């Protein structure tokens, strides 16, 4: 009896197969760029140590394997990746996989929360704006979204801290949890949630503006389609038409964009993580880049590629749920 794989798994499998060469190409390109940048981890490590003799720097370089030709380093690295060995961090000495995975949950939490928040709020505000098309509310929201969109993250983040944390004393200004806090499981969840609010909301602000504008125009387009008139003709209320009939259809481009922006959000989180002292990947990227910690950078790249793939598969799933036509395409 032939074993048959469900179509969705086949589809996922194909997606992953398609993405592997892309990831390898990105990895190779990054490796090349990193090798072209002047200076290496041995220089930085010795300098951070207050300086070192030529022999010591060379010994360090050899012990890190940085004295080998670039191409050899690359293939030995990729060989490791295939066996799930991402090597050791040059600067931190930990296995890269441990180092990166210790940061992944925080980044995922921040990214997923803020994107979800942004998508949700953006959608609701977009619907609201589209149903009041041309009204004062619509125009005010347009202006606010433009402001949010063009406000530097950095400034916004600091203002949030100053207002909610310093001025009102409502929320903690940074970190992921109360240090030394002794909590029950639920207490810990609540504690992390409280710490998550400011960074997630700050990060969401920018995306809210994007999604709101997209949702609004998508809604306006859908609201003019025949099936909306048809729904109205059978007596559906305006609320139901906007939030159910039109929104469900207008959502697709927004969700698709959110999927595309996962990578963007990963990049944007560097700043937010820096200001809020959030222990995520973003900060590690920045530090590793300055330290020329190639192994760590490559590890982050590989892990985040996997993350992006997983997330975009989830987005595909969501799109499939939103629009039944997609599954059959």
């Amino acid at each position, binding site marked *: 009896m032939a074993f048959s794989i469900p179509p969705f798994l086949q589809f996922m499998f194909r997606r992953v197969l398609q993405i592997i060469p892309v990831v390898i190409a990105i990895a190779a390109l990054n490796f090349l760029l990193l090798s072209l940048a002047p200076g290496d981890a041995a220089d930085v490590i010795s300098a951070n140590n207050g300086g070192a003799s030529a022999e010591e720097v060379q010994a360090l370089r050899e012990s890190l394997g940085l004295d080998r030709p670039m191409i050899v380093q690359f293939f030995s690295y990729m060989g490791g990746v295939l066996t799930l060995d991402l090597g*050791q961090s040059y600067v931190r000495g930990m296995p890269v996989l441990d180092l990166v995975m210790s940061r992944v949950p925080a980044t995922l939490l921040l990214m997923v929360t803020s994107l979800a928040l942004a998508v949700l709020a953006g959608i609701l505000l977009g619907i609201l704006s589209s149903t009041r098309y041309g009204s004062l509310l619509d125009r005010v929201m347009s202006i606010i979204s433009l402001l949010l969109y063009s406000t530097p993250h950095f400034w916004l983040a600091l203002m949030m801290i100053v207002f909610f944390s310093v001025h009102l004393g409502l929320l903690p200004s*940074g970190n992921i949890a109360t240090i030394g806090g002794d909590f029950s499981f639920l207490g810990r969840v609540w504690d992390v949630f409280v710490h998550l609010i400011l960074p997630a909301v700050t990060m969401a602000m920018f995306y809210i503006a994007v999604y709101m504008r997209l949702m609004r125009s998508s809604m306006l387009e859908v609201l003019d389609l025949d099936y909306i008139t048809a729904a109205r003709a059978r007596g559906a209320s305006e609320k139901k038409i906007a939030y159910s009939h039109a929104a469900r259809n207008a959502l697709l481009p927004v969700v698709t964009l959110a999927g595309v922006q996962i990578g963007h959000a990963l990049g944007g989180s560097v700043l937010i993580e*820096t200001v809020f002292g959030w222990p995520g990947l973003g900060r590690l990227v920045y530090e590793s880049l300055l330290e020329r910690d190639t192994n760590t950078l490559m590890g982050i790249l590989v892990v985040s590629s996997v993350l992006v793939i997983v997330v975009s598969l989830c987005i595909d799933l969501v799109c499939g749920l939103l629009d039944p036509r997609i599954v059959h395409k």
Partner: protein
Amino acid sequence: MKSARYLGAAATLALIATTAAQAQDACPTKGGTLTFSYTAEPVALSTLRTTAVTVSLMAGKIYEGLVSYEGPEMTPVPGLAESWDISEDGTVYTFHLRDGVKWHDGEPFTSADVKFGIENAIRPYHSRGKIFFGNVTSIETPDPLTVIFTLASPVEYFMQGFQMTSAPMLPKHILETLDVSDRQALINSSLTSEPIGTGPFKFKEWVHGDHITLTRNPDYWQAGLPCLDNIVMRSIPDGVARGIALENGEIDLLPMNSVLDSDIARFEDMDSLEVSMRGDEGLGGIIWLDVNNREEPLSDPMVRKAISLSLDRETIRDVIWYGYGVPARGPLVSTNPFFNEKLPELEFDLEKAAALLDEAGYPADANGHRFTITQRALPNGEKFIRLAEYVRQQLGKVGIEAKIETSDYAGWLKSVFTDYNYGITSTSTDNRNDPTIGTGRRFHTKNIKVGATFENAGAYSNPEVDRLFDEGAVAPTREARKAIFDEVQEILVDDMPVVYLLEIPRVSVWNAKVHGLITNGISFYDNWAKVYKEE
């Protein structure tokens, strides 16, 4: 100026151990948590891997050196070693260890730990191991509480080698479980990630990228200490957010330049905060322009002096360094015990500079232009960029075009120390408290090596200077060494192989409720046993 008198090691011989009662007095309040932030989180918790500031800040509370140090001059005082004797000829050091000291895991601390750790980890792998222990021919342990170091020749600064950042005492019973022949294995081991030391604070947890918690060692050998219950290093990578957290009382301390320069003036006006430049005299931070002595015309001392004459150090301090710092007079900072008090202040005189350049044979052309050099800037923040701008502007006034090239830190290191692709560059360096350790390597001919970092990149070579540094290293008495280094300083000012700019003490800010932070020349690396926090 502070007195630079150095207390000879012999003078400490008779010092008696601090009693428990005294220790109690040292803690007006007990308990509490001191939370601090620095610019980044450490890459390890032992200086065995790196002596980077981040690491030294944490490691110094967990691991201790064989002796302790007091005052800005870093006078050795009893610590893990209760007392010590130094032979007449200065080649045999006998340490008498304190009885009853325990590692954080309960094992006793003995002479075997001292010998094993220095021989198998510190000397071969610690970045400062060879400076202090390279000359040691044997380490003997006649009994568990006695360690005898025998040196091939006298090393006058040997007692400085036991600082917690330079030679942390490491547990033999853990080292034995590791492959000590493999440097990587050792520096990546639990020694650097879950340290077991003898210090007043024990490692508790490290949430990577978020915080590190140390907690009091209840069995610390100084009964009643430490005063604090916990020390937390919280990661706040952004400078503005760090300032806010300090102001807001969420953290208690921003040590060693981790405060934004633009915040300092405001914090100085606040009663709730203490702003201080004390406590890092043992490091002796100084900035200068490294000059590539290989290249015409910078190989000409007259040209280097002309550059020095073109720069107004008070302007640099007041306009760029927010008023902090002291105009440098030579390679050593004025708080260094070996500083030559007779050195004059370095002049600022553009006309003299121009005249000197004419004399050196670099006349100005019709446009007032003499020659072009490449200038790099230490990639360490805004100030060094502004300094480069200032240097470019001033040199322009005397006809030298100093083109600015920028890069990130790794790129800068490569350009300056490997490719020598620079004419001048700002740099920041520490004297440490002995010229043999911190200064000689920047000017000695033997330190001209491609790829060496923070050594003699400029390829300055003067046999007289080499000779004096060599003699100064082995001269048996403090007085003899001082005389030698006084002479070196005069030559190094006269030749101006680099252009000395500013002594820059590190600024630290802390909550006024915190007391006892300033203990010696590397206070923030010290163990903070007596630091306490008012309720």
